[in-house]
């Protein structure tokens, strides 16, 4: 459970779990120093307020310590250093290493080659191996890759291996979970203040738990497997402040599409993205995961949301390991700060072929579509399906195009079939989807988000126009090079399915 951590320094923002007051306790703006970025980063602020500029107040305690951001603090603790600055290269102790069926075999190969065939991993309890990418396929190599994972987990006695053997029926596999980033959260492997590395770009998703989480390649992962450490450079932090009540037609996906459209696909390269503000605080964990998930689409190294009562509540029944949340100091330095007045935002899409090709959904209403895809770590969680169901429920009509539903994990699949949708008189998502004429929810995995082997369910094998709740829309992302992918929130995806055109969900949500 959460341990309370009270720091003696008045400048620190370590807070006891029991007394957490949320960011309303902070003078959130006046003490943040904003450094102007040397590069041509867009400073356009989409909001009513301009960035606050203020002098950094001199330390009053006589302590030499400078304020650090959340990310800097996490890396400081993980590298056992009292103080870090952006740009420092430090050896970091890794709390969790995650890998899956696409990159696991390669990482294992490197580990064995470099450390020895009979070497043991650094800690059999800190490695989580989650087959999720190419699972329900007859591709022999894909199947073999899951076998490679299994062999390694057996010989190394890896504690957390979410295996699958019976590909014809996912339910026959009690250990199998599905999409790694969602499984990490659901199985309690994400804890505030920790360092989690994964061989997948969307590892940044679990920064939603107030931890440092980022993607690495096979070679780095092979190194971590043997040593439990990695050399990382401390990133500067971009702060995104979102205040205001979340309009009923917006979801976290819209927020992150707004941000990526604002700063571009390279706007956060090598930087940390910190999300704060009353809007962020109002988001549940899965919505926060969506926000952090697409940090990599802006080039970001990691995303963080400060842990609060929402986080602790989520973790209550999931992890029994102690953890210590960290928070940005009031005097921490941020490279830039962006402020958004959420009440002014509207549902968005990212048009082909880039996640920063932002447009208002309502301005794309003449774009005829061929299909809708609801799934992936970005948009295939329980909350995402509840959101889509809400739109179908409000409409009461049937979809006009094939609508593919791919729950991210077994748990999400169960929720889709058991949770009652608010305002529906007790109907489940699955019932609502069926009544709306959607495809039956498929076996949980990454599915067609990234195309995959040719026989992957819902893969785009011909040039089609698709509205998708996934994370990337570069050419060929879902299969066919000439495919056109519009990235959108589950609300927008469901609305579009109902009309056969890219549609603003306000058409259905009153």
């Amino acid at each position, binding site marked *: 459970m959460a341990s309370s951590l009270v720091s003696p320094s008045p400048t620190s923002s370590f807070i006891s779990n029991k007394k957490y007051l949320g960011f309303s306790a902070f003078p959130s703006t006046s003490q943040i120093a904003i450094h102007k970025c040397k590069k041509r980063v867009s400073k356009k602020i989409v909001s009513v307020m301009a960035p606050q500029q203020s002098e950094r107040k001199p330390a009053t305690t006589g302590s030499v310590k400078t304020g650090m951001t959340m990310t800097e603090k996490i890396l400081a603790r993980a590298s056992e250093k009292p103080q870090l600055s952006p740009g420092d290269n430090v050896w970091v102790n890794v709390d969790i290493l995650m890998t899956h069926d696409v990159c696991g075999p*390669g990482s294992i190969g490197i580990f064995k080659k470099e450390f020895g065939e009979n070497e043991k991993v650094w800690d059999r309890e800190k490695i989580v191996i989650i087959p999720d990418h190419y699972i329900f396929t007859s591709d022999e190599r894909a199947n073999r890759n899951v076998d490679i994972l299994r062999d390694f987990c057996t010989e190394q006695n890896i504690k957390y291996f979410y295996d699958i053997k019976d590909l014809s029926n996912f339910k026959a596999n009690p250990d199998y979970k599905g999409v790694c980033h969602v499984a990490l959260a659901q199985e309690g492997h994400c804890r505030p203040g920790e360092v989690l590395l994964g061989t997948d770009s969307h590892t940044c998703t679990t920064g939603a738990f107030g931890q440092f989480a980022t993607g690495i*390649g096979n070679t780095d992962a092979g190194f971590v497997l043997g040593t439990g450490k990695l050399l990382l450079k401390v990133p500067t932090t971009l702060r995104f402040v979102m205040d205001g009540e979340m309009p009923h037609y917006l979801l976290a996906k819209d927020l992150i599409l707004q941000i990526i459209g604002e700063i571009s696909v390279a706007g956060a390269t090598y930087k940390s993205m910190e999300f704060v503000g009353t809007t962020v605080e109002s988001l549940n964990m899965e919505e926060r995961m969506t926000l952090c998930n697409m940090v990599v689409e802006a080039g970001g190294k990691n995303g963080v949301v400060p842990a609060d009562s929402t986080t602790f509540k989520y973790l209550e029944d999931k992890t029994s390991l102690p953890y210590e949340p960290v928070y940005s100091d009031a005097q921490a330095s941020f490279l830039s700060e962006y402020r958004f007045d959420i009440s002014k935002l509207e549902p968005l899409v990212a048009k082909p072929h880039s996640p920063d090709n932002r447009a208002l959904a309502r301005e794309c209403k003449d774009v005829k579509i061929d299909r809708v895809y609801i799934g992936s770590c970005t948009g295939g969680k329980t909350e995402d399906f509840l959101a889509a169901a809400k739109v179908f429920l409000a409409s009461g009509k049937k979809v006009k195009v094939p609508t593919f539903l791919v729950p991210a994990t077994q748990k999400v699949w169960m929720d889709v079939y058991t949770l009652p949708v608010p305002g529906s008189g007790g109907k489940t998502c699955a019932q609502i989807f069926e009544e709306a004429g959607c495809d039956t929810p498929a076996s949980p995995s990454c599915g067609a988000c990234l195309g995959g082997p040719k026989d992957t369910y819902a893969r785009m094998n011909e040039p089609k126009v698709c509205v998708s709740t996934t994370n990337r829309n570069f050419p060929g992302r879902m299969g066919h090079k000439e495919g056109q992918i519009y990235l959108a929130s589950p609300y927008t995806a469901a609305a579009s399915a109902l009309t056969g055109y890219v549609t603003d969900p306000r058409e259905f949500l009153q």
Partner: protein
Amino acid sequence: MCDSLSHASYSATFSSLASKTSVSPPPLFPPSFKVPTFSPLTVKPLSSTFTPHAARVTTITTYAATSPSSVPSDASTTTFHGLCYVVGDNIDTDQIIPAEYLTLVPSNPAEYEKLGSYALIGLPSSYATRFIEPNEIKTKYSIVIGGANFGCGSSREHAPVALGAAGAKAVVAESYARIFFRNSVATGEVYPLESEVRICEECRTGDMVTIELGESRLINHNTGKEYKLKPIGDAGPVIEAGGIFAYARKTGMIPPQSK
């Protein structure tokens, strides 16, 4: 792997570095990993033209080069000479190696070669000249010239591996996405070089170019123009050694491979 390199200038230095470091190889990795000895913070200051990510990678490797006579990285005589293949901005990992080929495991030699045969196959058909001809498995272009944010998207290490396996020696881009850059250095598959201007707009696929690593210079023989590159710095020896493990071994940072 990068095989067109002259190792002469480095071998002597590496052995001298190795003899200076006192590492008794114990069975397990962590105890021999003398982190305090290899403090990245004692590195001599790098050129001011470094962009954040180039500087970052150089500092990774300098933990092995803290002896006073650390190798000046621009003493390299490495050159690349060959045809260049020009691409645009934001070439993401799905274009470099589409997801359907990710079932190939890079550490498996046969599959490594196969990966190479699919390098850049994901580029749209607007690229009329393909990186690898239809019935070939290797590329005739040893240098890829790109725009901004090269390698964005996935963390798949298959991306730099595919390029290296195909026969590319270096990428010269305006800027890189971080995971791709990091993977390029860690694997030693391709040199991720950065240009100061948008070379991708001034070179054409099929132009004959020379890259002089030591001079940080690219020469396009078809146009006669020369371009300044950002020095690869300490990332160079890592790539030249064959990646981060090979480099760490060569410099005595980690024990020799156990059989």
